[in-house]
C-alpha cells in the first residue's frame, strides 16, 4: 500500500520568477519568468549561449542564481542544495554510474531516500517495464547500447517520483536514425508517467516534435513562449521566424493591419496580403519582415500563372529530397527565395525557367528600426 502511494508521480507545477544569472558583465539569464503546469512537457529552445543550459542548472541546483525565486508547487526551492530539490536530471552523456548495474543505477535515488530493499526492487521493475528494458537489470551500463543507456538514465531520473524532470540535450549523443525513434519514445514515457518535464535542446525539430510548449530563448531572455504549432506558424519576433524552421524573410513596411493585413515589400510594387500578423505591428509604414515558409511559396510555369499577387521569378537551382523538391529562385525586386514543393508541382521545372510565384501563406513580424534605415536607403536606390 505504502509503495503504491510512493510510486505515484510526484509531478508538481513549476514556477520561475525573475531568474537572473550574471558572469562578470555578461547576463547568461536575465529576469526569466516561466510557469510550467503539472505534467506538462516544456522545451527550452535556443542557440548555444542563449542561457537555456544555465537555466537548467539553476533549476537543478547545480548553479546558484543571482536573483529570482523557484517554486515546485507551493515549495520554494531556490535556496536548497541540489540533493534536497527532488529533481530528476538526465545528463547529455547520461552519467550512469559505470560500477553499478542498471538496477542499482535506477534504485540509487530510492536508496538515498531510505526505501526498504523490497520496495526498491519492485519500483525498479516497474520502471524497467516503463522504459521497456525488462530483463536487462543485471547488466552494467557499458553493456548497453546508446539508446538503452539513455532510457536507463530516464528511468533513474523518474524512479523516486521527482517534482520535476530535467533533460539536458539527452538525444545529442545518438545517431540520427535512433534519435528519431528515441524522441518519440521519450515523449511517450513522459506522457505515461504524467511527469512535469523541462527539456533543453538547440534542435528545433526535437522541440517541435516533443513539446507541449516551447520556450524560445536568445541572449538570456525569452523570445517567445508558444505551442509548437503557433511557434512555427505565427512567430512573434524576427529571431523566432528565423530560428524555427526554414523561412524566407523579406523586408517591408505595413500598409494596413486589421482583419486583412497587407504589406509592401522592399523592391516590389504590388502589396503582399498577409494571413497572420505578430503582435506589436499596428502603425502604418512600420518596418516589418514578410515571412513566407518555403512550403508556402507555390509556383507554376509562367504561361499558367494567374491570380493572387503573381510575381515572376527565375529558377536558379533544384534539389531533390524525396517527398519534396527544394527550388531556389531569384526574383528581380526581392532577390533570392527558397521554395519547397511536392515533385508533382515542380518536377517538370528546370534551372533557368521563368515561373510565376503564388504566395500560399504569409506572416508579418516586426523589424528592428536600426536596419530599417538601411532598407529605406535601399528602397530609395531601387526607386
Amino acid at each position, binding site marked *: 500500500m505504502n509503495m503504491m502511494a510512493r510510486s505515484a508521480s510526484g509531478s508538481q507545477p513549476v514556477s520561475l520568477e525573475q531568474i537572473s544569472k550574471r558572469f562578470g558583465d555578461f547576463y547568461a539569464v536575465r529576469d526569466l519568468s516561466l510557469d510550467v503546469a503539472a505534467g506538462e512537457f516544456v522545451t527550452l529552445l535556443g542557440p548555444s549561449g542563449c542561457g537555456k543550459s544555465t537555466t537548467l542548472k539553476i533549476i*537543478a*541546483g*547545480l548553479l546558484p542564481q543571482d536573483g529570482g525565486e523557484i517554486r515546485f508547487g507551493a515549495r520554494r526551492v531556490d535556496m536548497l*542544495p*541540489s*540533493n*534536497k*530539490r*527532488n*529533481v*530528476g*536530471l538526465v*545528463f547529455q*552523456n547520461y*552519467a550512469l*554510474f*559505470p*560500477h553499478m548495474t542498471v538496477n542499482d543505477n535506477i534504485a*540509487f*535515488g530510492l536508496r*538515498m*531516500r531510505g526505501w526498504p530493499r523490497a520496495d526498491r526492487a519492485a519500483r525498479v521493475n516497474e520502471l524497467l517495464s516503463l522504459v521497456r528494458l525488462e530483463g536487462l537489470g543485471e547488466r552494467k551500463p557499458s553493456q548497453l547500447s546508446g539508446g538503452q543507456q539513455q532510457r536507463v538514465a530516464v528511468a*533513474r*531520473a523518474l524512479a*523516486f517520483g521527482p517534482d520535476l524532470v530535467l533533460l539536458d540535450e539527452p538525444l545529442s549523443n545518438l545517431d540520427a536514425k535512433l534519435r528519431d525513434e528515441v524522441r518519440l519514445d521519450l515523449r511517450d514515457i513522459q506522457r505515461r508517467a504524467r511527469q512535469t518535464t523541462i527539456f533543453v535542446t538547440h534542435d528545433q525539430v526535437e522541440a517541435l516534435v516533443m513539446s507541449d510548449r516551447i520556450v524560445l530563448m536568445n541572449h538570456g531572455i525569452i523570445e517567445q513562449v508558444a505551442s509548437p504549432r503557433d511557434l512555427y506558424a505565427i512567430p512573434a519576433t524576427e529571431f523566432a521566424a528565423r530560428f524555427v524552421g526554414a523561412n524566407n524573410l523579406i523586408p517591408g513596411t505595413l500598409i494596413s493591419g486589421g482583419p486583412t493585413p497587407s504589406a509592401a515589400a522592399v523592391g516590389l510594387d504590388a502589396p503582399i496580403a498577409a494571413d497572420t500578423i505578430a503582435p506589436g505591428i499596428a502603425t502604418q509604414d512600420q518596418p516589418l519582415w514578410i515571412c513566407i515558409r518555403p512550403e508556402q511559396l507555390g509556383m507554376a510555369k509562367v504561361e499558367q500563372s494567374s491570380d493572387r499577387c503573381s510575381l515572376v521569378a527565375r529558377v536558379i537551382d533544384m534539389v531533390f529530397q524525396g517527398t519534396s523538391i527544394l527550388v531556389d529562385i531569384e526574383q528581380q525586386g526581392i532577390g533570392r527565395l527558397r521554395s519547397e514543393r511536392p515533385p508533382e508541382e515542380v518536377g517538370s521545372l528546370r534551372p533557368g525557367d521563368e515561373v510565376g510565384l503564388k504566395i500560399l501563406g504569409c506572416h508579418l513580424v516586426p523589424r528592428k528600426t536600426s536596419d530599417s534605415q538601411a532598407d529605406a536607403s535601399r528602397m530609395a536606390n531601387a526607386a
Partner: protein
Amino acid sequence: MTDMTVRMAVPAIGSRVRISGPRLLSAGLWTVYLLVIGAWLLFPILLVVVASLQGKLEVSWPLSHLNLDAYRAIPSGYWQSFWFTIRVSIVASCCSLLISLPAAWAMVRGRLWERRLISSLVLLPEIVPQLILGIALLTIFIPLGLSNSFGGVVLALIALNLAMGLRFGEALLEGLPEEYELAAESLGASKLAALRLIVLPLIAPGLAIAALFVFMQNLIAFVLLFFIAGPSATPISIRLFTDIVDRGVVPEAVAMSAMLVYVALIFYAIVALALGPKYMAGALMSRKG
C-alpha cells in the same frame, strides 16, 4: 567459390608471417635493448637475493650451497627495525592519502583560482633536498619531543608523501567526469555519500596503485629519516646503514635487504591481484584501465 577463397586466403596469411631481413634485424636489436634494460634494472635485486641465499656477498657460480642460514642469523634488533618500518610505512601511507585526497578534491572540484599556485607549491617538498627538510623538521621536533619517536617518523614520512599523494589524487579526480557526482547529488546524495558511493569506488584502482607507490617510498625512505630517527625509533634502512658502516656487509644484512625486496613484491602482487593485470601495465592513472 570455396576454391577461390582458399586461394586468396593463403598468400594473405603467408605475407603476414614472412619477416624480411631488415625487420628481423630491428626486432633483434629491440630484444637486445630490452634485455639490457631488464638486466640493468633487475641485477641489484637478483644479486641481493642470491647473495642472501648463499650467505655471503660474493655470488659464486654455479649456484650451489643455497641455504637459509643468513636469514636464521638475522638478529632480533633487525627484526624490530623491520617491523617498525612496516608499521610506520602503513600508518604514514594511510594518513597521507587520507589527508591528500580531500585536498585534491577541493583543488580539482573547488575551482580555486589559486589552484595553479597551490599545485606548484605542493611540488616544492619534492624538489627541495630531503636534507633540508630533515634539518627543518628536526629543529621543530626536538622541542616537541617528537624526534626519535614513532610519531615523529610518521609525521616526517607524511610530509614527504603529501606531494605525491596530492599529485595522484589530482590526476585521478581530473580523470573522473564531474557529472557522476552531480548526478548522484541530483538523485538525493549528500556530498559525502556521493564521495563514498560514487567517487571512491570509481577511483579505487588508481588509489590502490597510489597507495602502493607511497608505501614503497616509505619503506625505503632514508635521507630524511637519518635526521629524525634515533635508538628508540630506528627504521630498517638506517639500522642496516649504520651496521654496514660499523661492521662491513655481513650476511645477515644482505638477508634483511632481501626481506625488503620480498615485502615490496608481496605488496605489488596483492595490488596486482586485486586489480587484475590490465591496471598494472601502463594504465596507471586511467580510470578506464
